[in-house]
């Protein structure tokens, strides 16, 4: 579990060479400014309006990706196609086609759309909606196809038309996973919206970047603290909703990919999709960081008497309905027995009813005009694409640097999270501190960390990797912390009782059981990082990403096209690799 941290050694060895003079004072200023953010009404006002825009973009982008994703999920589900017209190939076709929008990072979509249609509020929203929609479609269709189809076949055999049969037989089992995943996507959308802002698509990100570039640290922190507050508010309220609706708890460490995970967690039977059209929109619940394996969830839910092996990695949800429920692994089964059905379904419909007008109002307030996306600006004359110049790009270096960047960043993020947890284990104040640091790392867009690091370091691959790694460290760290908080580890308690020190007890007693799924999640995260290398491209000399941004600003469309294709191929390859790694790690020993 700590092995990836080995990457620290070369990085630390390289660091002194990278440090250039004079950065430390600036960095100290930056740190001090955290305690005295500017409270000037003008600054606060502009930060608030920027924040409003960012949240608006995130919400609208998330909602449209939900609608888009749900529709595409149905279109790419084998189960749906075979049930409704006994064909399978259309599902596979749609699935293949969706790989392309999925493999391109939302930032690239944003910049591309920006070039094509100009600066519009709809650009940022579409930039989020397109790749997210494709991602949601893949995850949901995988979940759909993994559901047991006995009940569906039974309904069909008694003459029920396909749509109603699909809705009744597959809707309810799909819902918990759908909502959990939808909630997680909303958190991601907020981060993405901030990131898009950094690249000039509007909102708080733009302001943060301007503040940083002009070294206005006090104003910078005003925006940062506000963003942090919104993010934590969102995360807690999603967690609250998830508990209220008895949705599966964060399943991140249980395995991020459908079909590869084995969460030892039984979902409570979920009532009622909010509506057949867009449950994703209707009800955000918190956040399986990954995707639950609904088939497994269901199979456990259907056997409430069997508690299953308590998997220490998988947090067991404790409903807070005032029900007499034990927090042990059997908790869910009990909850399933006593929870009142119906109420949740109606609440979800209500949530949808509140959310829909809110989104419409938001779209109006932001003057979003989706049609603007269709009115393309005249494209610069492509002329004869000069394939010679495309071929002249140093492809091996670009690809190599991108992969190296991913590896270093992944090593840093995956290795440091447990290391820091271990180092700080004995100190009582370590937990809140780590929580704060990790929250900051999550919300701090990687290009901003990169800019900040540039105050201290020379531009280059390691700097970019540090920025990227720091951001993902925030995500992994939070996951690990929650996994530790949510489970008792008898082994750790036993070791502590035997007089073993707290660090060693944590290491042997807890990490040993967490390791496999943590690393599996790390593999998934590495795949995400590969996609994200583009966002730290602006630090320079860092692979395909920086070349891409360069080509984009030079309007070298032929290069851009080639780069995007290579990027997409690389991402798909990485996805496949990380899928394999995950399956290997999660396979029962």
């Amino acid at each position, binding site marked *: 579990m700590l092995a990836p941290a080995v990457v620290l050694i070369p990085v630390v060895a390289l660091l002194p060479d990278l440090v250039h003079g004079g950065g430390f004072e600036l960095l100290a200023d930056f740190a001090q400014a955290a305690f005295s953010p500017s409270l000037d009404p003008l600054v606060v006002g502009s930060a608030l309006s920027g924040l409003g825009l960012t949240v608006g973009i995130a919400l609208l982008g998330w909602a449209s990706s939900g609608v888009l994703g749900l529709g595409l999920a149905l279109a790419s589900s084998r189960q749906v196609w075979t049930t409704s017209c*006994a064909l399978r190939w259309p599902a596979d076709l749609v699935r293949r086609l969706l790989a392309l929008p999925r493999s391109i990072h939302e930032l690239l979509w944003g910049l591309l759309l920006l070039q094509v249609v100009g600066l519009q509020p709809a650009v940022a929203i579409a930039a989020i909606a397109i790749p997210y929609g494709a991602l949601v479609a893949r995850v949901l269709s995988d979940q759909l196809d993994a559901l047991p189809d*006995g*009940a569906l*076949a*039974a*309904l*069909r*055999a*008694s*003459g*029920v*038309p396909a*749509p*109603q*049969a699909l*809705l*009744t*037989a597959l*809707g*309810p*089992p799909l*819902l918990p996973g759908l909502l959990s995943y939808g909630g997680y996507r909303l958190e991601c959308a907020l981060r993405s919206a901030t990131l898009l802002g950094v690249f000039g698509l509007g909102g708080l990100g733009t302001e943060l970047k301007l503040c940083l570039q002009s070294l206005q640290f006090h104003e910078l922190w005003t925006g940062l603290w506000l963003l942090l507050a919104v993010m934590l508010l969102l995360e807690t309220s999603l967690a609250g909703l998830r508990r209220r609706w008895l949705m599966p708890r964060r399943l991140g460490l249980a395995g991020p990919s459908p079909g590869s995970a084995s969460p030892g967690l039984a*979902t*409570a*039977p*979920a*009532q*009622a*999709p909010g*509506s*057949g059209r867009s449950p994703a929109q209707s009800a955000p619940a918190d956040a399986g960081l990954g995707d639950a394996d609904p088939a497994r969830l*269901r199979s456990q*839910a*259907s056997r*409430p008497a069997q508690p299953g092996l308590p998997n220490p990695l998988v947090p067991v949800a404790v409903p807070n309905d005032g029900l007499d429920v034990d927090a042990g692994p059997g908790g869910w089964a009990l909850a*399933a*027995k*006593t*929870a*009142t*059905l*119906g109420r949740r*379904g*109606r609440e979800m*419909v209500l949530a949808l009813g509140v959310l829909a007008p809110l989104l419409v109002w938001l779209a109006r307030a932001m003057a979003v005009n989706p049609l603007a996306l269709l009115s393309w600006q005249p494209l610069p004359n492509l002329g004869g694409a000069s394939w010679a110049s495309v071929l002249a790009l140093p492809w091996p270096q670009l690809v190599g640097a991108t992969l190296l960047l991913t590896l270093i960043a992944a090593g840093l993020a995956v290795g440091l999270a447990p290391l820091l947890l271990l180092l700080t284990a004995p100190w009582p104040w370590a937990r809140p501190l780590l929580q704060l640091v990790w929250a900051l790392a999550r919300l701090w867009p990687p290009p901003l960390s990169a800019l900040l690091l540039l105050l201290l370091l020379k531009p280059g691959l390691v700097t970019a990797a540090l920025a990227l790694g720091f951001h993902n460290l925030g995500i992994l760290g939070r996951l690990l912390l929650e996994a530790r908080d949510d489970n008792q580890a008898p082994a750790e308690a036993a070791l502590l009782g035997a007089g073993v020190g707290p660090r060693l007890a944590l290491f042997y007693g807890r990490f040993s059981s967490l390791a496999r799924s943590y690393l599996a999640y790390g593999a998934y995260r590495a795949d995400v990082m590969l996609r994200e290398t583009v966002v730290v491209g602006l630090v320079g000399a860092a692979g395909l990403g920086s070349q891409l941004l360069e080509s984009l600003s030079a309007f070298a469309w032929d290069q851009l096209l080639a780069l995007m294709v290579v990027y997409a191929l690389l991402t798909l390859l990485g996805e496949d690799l990380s899928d394999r790694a995950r399956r290997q790690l999660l396979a029962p020993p």
Partner: protein
Amino acid sequence: MPPAPAREPAASVSSLARPLADLSWLELRQITVPGRARPRLDRVSLAIGCGERVALLGASGAGKSSLLAVANGQLVPASGSLRWLGSPPARPGPARRRQQARIGTLWQDLRLIEELSVQQNLNSARLAVWGWPRALLNLLWPLESDANRDALAQVDLGAELLGQPVAALSGGQRQRVAIARLLRQDPELLLADEPLASLDPRLASEVLQLLLDQATPRRALLLSLHRPDLLVGFDRAIGLRQGQVLFDQPASAVGPADLEALYGGEPP
């Protein structure tokens, strides 16, 4: 339902006056389903009239499940013809669905929707008749509680179970809910594949009695059984061996010799 003699179909049930030969509720003619080593069903012919209670006997692997799968339209035979309630299966579409809505199956694994309440599961039997709006509403609101309460009462369950999630029920309750769901579908042909296989003896005889009680004059019943000692209460017994019909006679006439021929010499 006016009482009528068991073998005589009530005239009101079938609006068309058909020749008597066509009045079988289920008719298989020369049905063959290929298998790996030998056919799973080998030129099987049988006819079941309305109001009949028929037991299907045979060792495991004799083709009972295949026969029932052909009977409810799940399995399309390689050759032979099938008639439901006097007419051949329609092509997939609304007409076919109307036919299938009249055939109810009690699945061995019950196939209840775990995430839904008892009420919603019972209502799922009406989906073939209901349109979209009610299918959606069923997931949100309790619908047709009275009819569901009646159905539960017929299987000796209390109305307090209506709001319970199916996942929270005991094994016996689940069996009864599945039967109550069939009652809500109100099929004219009721098929059951080994409905008693995983039940303890007491529960098995209770469930069997429940099923036998469902054979009204206008409804035919075909159950596959693995225990010949439960034949009491059936009108007819059909013995299957290696995909072929070995005997087809009144249940009371099944003797030890028949059973020996049916089960004897079979690999376990």
